């Protein structure tokens, strides 16, 4: 017989805590901080990867790369427009993904026949490689012979600088990632204790009241987590946008990562320093937005408990 009320046996709490978090922190520091330092270094230099000049010997240009990105008269404030465009995409796609994904989760949270099969089928778009999926959507969007225009009965143009090009990216992104929001919402809905609804039933609370006061607040942490991750991933969207529409600077689908690629990597002759400077600016914006989101997430959590 063990006597009760002994201090926990085995490793001390302190040791457990350290073993829990330090491996992760170590890996992330090694694989993120170091590349960040190198790219910070590159962003202050005029470095062209395809030329044979090694990085250590490329000329130091100070803040020139940053200045070029922020106000270059001949690109007509293009970097700001790129930011705006990317933000618009984040708001539209993540908004649609959340609304559709959450509604689907509400629907599938009911005891309908074969819901396991429905969920598994609905998850398929998310399980596919975005680059390959976008390639196939491009085929479906073809002006002549594409299935979408065949159904719509009009040869719309979904690429280049047509206004529909932006919406083509929205459609594909929503199609791929709505399942992600659906799955997170389902997980959130599953974790709501049933007795809360039973209590509400006893109190004769309306359906709207139950949704507003029980469902929504309890799903919110999961939903917000999904929104934060989707927003961050959409902010650096590359694969789908680039495959759908090999955009040049100034088009409706030139999002931040696409323009980074265009500036620094695609045309090998251009300056990688310029692209990394742009990446740093992007990182600042992303961190600021992330901070705001996490702040809300924390507030939501503390209000709940």
């Amino acid at each position, binding site marked *: 017989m*063990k006597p009760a009320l002994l201090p926990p046996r085995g490793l001390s709490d302190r040791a457990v805590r350290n073993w829990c978090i330090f491996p992760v922190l170590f890996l992330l520091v090694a694989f993120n901080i170091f590349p960040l330092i190198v790219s910070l270094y590159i962003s202050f230099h005029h470095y062209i990867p395809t030329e044979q000049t090694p990085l250590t010997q490329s000329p130091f240009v100070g803040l020139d790369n940053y200045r070029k990105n922020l106000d270059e008269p001949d690109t007509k404030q293009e970097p700001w427009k790129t930011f705006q465009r990317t933000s618009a995409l984040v708001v539209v796609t993540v908004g649609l993904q959340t609304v559709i994904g959450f509604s689907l989760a509400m629907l599938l949270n009911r005891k309908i026949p074969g819901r396991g099969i429905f969920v598994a089928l609905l998850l398929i*778009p998310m399980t596919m490689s975005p680059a390959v999926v976008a390639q196939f959507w491009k085929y479906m969007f073809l002006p002549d012979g594409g299935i979408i225009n065949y159904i719509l009965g009009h040869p719309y143009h979904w690429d280049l600088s047509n206004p529909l090009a932006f919406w083509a990216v929205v459609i594909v992104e929503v199609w791929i990632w709505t399942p992600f929001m659906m799955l997170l919402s389902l997980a959130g809905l599953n974790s709501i204790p049933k007795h809360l609804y039973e209590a509400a039933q006893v109190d004769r609370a309306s359906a709207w009241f139950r949704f507003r006061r029980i469902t929504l607040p309890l799903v919110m942490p999961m939903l917000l987590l999904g929104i934060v991750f989707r927003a961050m991933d959409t902010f650096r969207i590359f694969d789908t946008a680039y495959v759908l529409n090999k955009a040049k600077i100034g088009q409706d689908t030139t999002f931040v990562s696409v323009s980074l690629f265009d500036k620094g990597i695609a045309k090998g002759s251009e300056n990688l320093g310029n692209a990394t400077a742009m990446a740093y600016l992007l990182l600042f914006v992303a961190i600021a937005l992330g901070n705001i989101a996490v702040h809300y997430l924390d507030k939501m959590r503390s209000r709940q408990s």
Partner: protein
Amino acid sequence: MKESWIRRWMWFQPALLITLLMMAPIIWMIITSFKQPDETQSLVPGFIPDFSTKIDEWGDPVAPEKYHFTATLTNYKAILGARNVGWYIFNTVIISALTTIASVFLGFFAAYGFSRFKIAGSNDMQFFILSTRMLPAMAVSIPISWMFRRMGLHDTHLGLILLYTCFNLSFSTWMMKAFIDEIPKAYEEAAMLDGYSRMKILFKIILPQAMTGIIATAVFCLIAAWNEYAFALSLTSETAVTMPLNIANAAQENTITHGRVAAGAVLFMLPIAIFTLLMRKHLLRGVTFGAVKG
């Protein structure tokens, strides 16, 4: 509260409709994967497969009727008959399996640590973990490939596994922390009174309670590693090449390869789709906390 079967079938219909709508591109993809190049380009789409080419009285093949097409396995043969394809599939399987195990394992412990212990600067550390996901791959791929060459990790399985694990850790830690936060502390306190050690609590109480979250996280990590393209492109050249590169290569030539892209996508999707299908019970199982919550 039991719903009548009429109500259940009433909600079945919209679910079926939406599922069919979301599945339409996949169905079209499967149809396309059986088409010859010229049929993928016809102005009237073919939906219905003919399994043999009809021949007229002079022995010439007859063009299929409207909305019909001649089904062929050429695309699948081309994908599966490509050089080294077995090795690439092996690479993808081994890299994504080990990545998933590593990121779920490490993420689970970190999530427990952040959820249950008071740690100085805990919020900052968590935000750092989250922020590792914000940097565009474009910006880190060049320093990382430089670093990998120096460390001898270029074009190795270990290199890709390490990198993908790092990429997934931010998500797996945050996701599992959200699930572990939901588990009432009272369970652990009760177990501690019974003389359980921390490790025993972790495996006997937290692990089973957080299983839904762990499976969901594992599915996401597996998907991310299975499909990763950008880093694989810059960090592999021969030994550690994965399937996404191989499929994307099928599309790069200027010939008409819609059918082949579709076949590659369908083949590549199957294992993960089956895995998700098998895991659906776990993904849906309710996390049943008792009345202790709060």
